[in-house]
């Protein structure tokens, strides 16, 4: 049922935001550490490592984006909806550009599309929240 307070709700409790940040931090530290030493070259260049890193980055961003704020009221719900709108539009534009210029340097993959959409979502959400 729709009501005038139906906006866009977060899935996870507020503490999951911290979990997402920790996952991103650990992933960043691990990736940096492994890339510094030549010893881990084989690991770093392996597809399994790259896929793992990409997955954890997406999981971290998704947890941050989908966790409730301390006070999740109707204004926050509206901001989520607006941010989702911007993110969705970005996703469409990104795909159109990639299809129109197949030889461009933009590499469209599931990861880069969803990663950029999550970044746009978070940027718009926190920018509008601070306004």
């Amino acid at each position: 049922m729709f009501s005038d307070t139906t906006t866009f709700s977060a899935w996870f409790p507020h503490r999951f935001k911290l979990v997402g940040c920790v996952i991103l931090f650990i992933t960043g530290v691990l990736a940096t550490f492994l890339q510094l030493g030549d010893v881990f070259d084989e690991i770093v260049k392996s597809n399994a490592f790259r896929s793992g890193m990409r997955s954890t980055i997406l999981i971290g961003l998704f947890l941050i984006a989908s966790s409730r704020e301390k006070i999740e009221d109707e204004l926050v719900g509206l901001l989520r909806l607006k941010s989702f709108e911007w993110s969705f539009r970005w996703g469409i534009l990104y795909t159109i550009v990639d299809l129109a210029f197949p030889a461009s340097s933009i590499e469209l993959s599931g990861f880069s599309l969803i990663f950029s959409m999550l970044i746009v979502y978070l940027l718009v959400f926190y920018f509008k929240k601070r306004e």
Partner: protein
Amino acid sequence: MKNNLKIARVQKNLTQQDLAERIGVSRQTINSIETNRYIPSTLLALKVSKELACKVEELFELEQDD
């Protein structure tokens, strides 16, 4: 839409934080309503008017271009 929320709130000696806590929203939400950046839902408007013991029409008024 014009609103008289700030006047009504100050008359009751409430801060934005006090009012926000009483109706279960954030202080930013109250601030956004007072500065006309956000129009609240019917539910929130009713909660605010109940808390400030006045009619919704006294808090929110339609303007000519609405």
